[in-house]
């Protein structure tokens, strides 16, 4: 499979070559690289590869790294979610200090669609649209009837572990009807928040609000959102069959195929994406001049793992939405620079 060499970033034993993209007007004499929406649309390829209940893998082909990176950065830091922000501690006699327990509360992922809420800005009043209230009232006691000879805490005591499922949601205002049967709750009910012994108690009010990952990492909607660049391996001349096995073992499993009868070596184009580009093959003198390693500059293999209320497939769309909102805000303000007589004002944070 031949690829335009301009799309390849070379991976040599101790250096990378051909690093920067060169598709700009004026870079190549006589070639037009100015922005062309039609051409971009033709070249662009998005292919979803794999979807689970928690993650999505897809290929984004034909965009500059700055575009792919903008979306990745937005996924980490600017797609909003709901998390506990204010904790009012009435009683906490566990061994976990108030502030540590409060911090843990903040980190619990909540299953609330962020579109259902508005952002609480400084100076705003708390309303049923910007704040959710959870309460915890949890006390550990002795099990009045422990099994004979019991030694384990779960046998000896009642309520010896405070879990995320023990947060109870208290609807305010219209929230009861607004959220309907999709009640706000932690995405995972089995997160251990504190361990207790008889007589210890936790009583708290928790206020959850909407915000973004750049405010605090607990608001980040993803566990990871990352991309790799597609590896590309070209075999320059046939690998001698006595070295075929060794050649295969220089790459990740599945990347190199060896024909069982002819022992001809080829690259599996479906699994080449699994290669880690270790450059192991470049360490062996017998393969010198036989192979070239590179990566395809504009072929991004995205992996997004949701750790929030968002379906994995929805996250990428949300990041596009945030980016477009950014562009619109800046665009309106640039219009104001061009035409300062207009009355509507575009200000920061709008």
């Amino acid at each position: 499979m031949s690829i335009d060499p301009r799309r390849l970033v070379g991976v040599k034993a101790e250096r990378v070559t051909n690093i920067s993209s060169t598709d700009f007007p004026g870079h190549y004499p006589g070639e037009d690289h100015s922005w062309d929406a039609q051409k971009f649309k033709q070249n662009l390829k998005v292919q979803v590869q794999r979807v689970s209940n928690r993650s999505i893998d897809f290929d984004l082909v034909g965009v500059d790294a700055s575009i792919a990176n903008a979306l990745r950065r937005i996924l980490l830091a600017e797609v909003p979610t709901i998390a506990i922000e204010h904790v009012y501690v009435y009683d906490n006699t566990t061994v976990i200090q108030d502030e540590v327990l409060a911090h843990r509360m903040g980190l619990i992922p909540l299953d609330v669609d962020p579109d259902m809420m508005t952002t609480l800005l400084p100076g705003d009043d708390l309303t049923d649209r910007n704040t959710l209230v959870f309460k915890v009232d949890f006390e550990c006691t002795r099990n009045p009837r422990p099994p004979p000879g019991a030694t384990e805490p779960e046998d000896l005591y009642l309520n010896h572990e405070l879990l995320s499922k023990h947060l109870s949601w208290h609807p305010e205002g219209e929230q009861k009807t607004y959220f309907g049967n999709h009640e706000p709750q932690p995405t995972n009910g089995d997160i251990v928040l504190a361990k207790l012994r008889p007589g210890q108690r936790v009583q708290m009010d928790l206020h959850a609000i909407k915000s973004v990952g750049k405010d605090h990492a607990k608001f980040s909607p993803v566990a990871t959102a990352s991309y790799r660049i597609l590896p590309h391996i070209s075999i320059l001349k046939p690998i001698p069959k006595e070295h075929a096995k060794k050649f295969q073992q220089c790459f990740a499993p599945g990347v190199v195929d060896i024909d069982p009868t002819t022992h001809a070596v080829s690259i599996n184009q479906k699994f080449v994406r699994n290669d880690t580009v270790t450059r192991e093959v470049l360490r062996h003198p017998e393969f010198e001049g036989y192979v070239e390693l590179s990566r395809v500059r504009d072929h991004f293999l995205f992996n997004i793992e949701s750790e929030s209320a968002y379906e994995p497939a929805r996250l990428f769309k949300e990041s596009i939405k945030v980016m477009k909102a950014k562009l619109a805000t800046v665009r309106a303000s640039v219009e104001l620079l061009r035409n300062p007589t207009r009355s509507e004002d575009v200000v920061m944070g709008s």
Partner: protein
Amino acid sequence: MSQEIPKVDIVPNTASEDGSAATYRIHEESHTLGNALRWMLMKNPKVEFCGYSVPHPSENFIHVRVQMYDGFSSTDAFATALDDLENVFDTIEEKYDESLKSGKYETWVEKS
């Protein structure tokens, strides 16, 4: 509070008289927008130079420097780049939706 500061302004003493070159300051933006915008401005053949920077990590704004050939307006180029970027993301979303709709992908269950 910050009500009076516009989202975008021109850094004092950086604009040429005809407006063909200027450094724009965009408040509350980072590399996320800066690099994408720089790329789109560089795709414009009328742009002689474009670069962006985050002058200081604890000041929440970026600088975007634009210099045009033949006295073209840098502000116009800036606006065009923003429009074109919007088109980029519309196209990406469209193709992403298409791929999701086609259903040609593997599905699996991940235990949490």
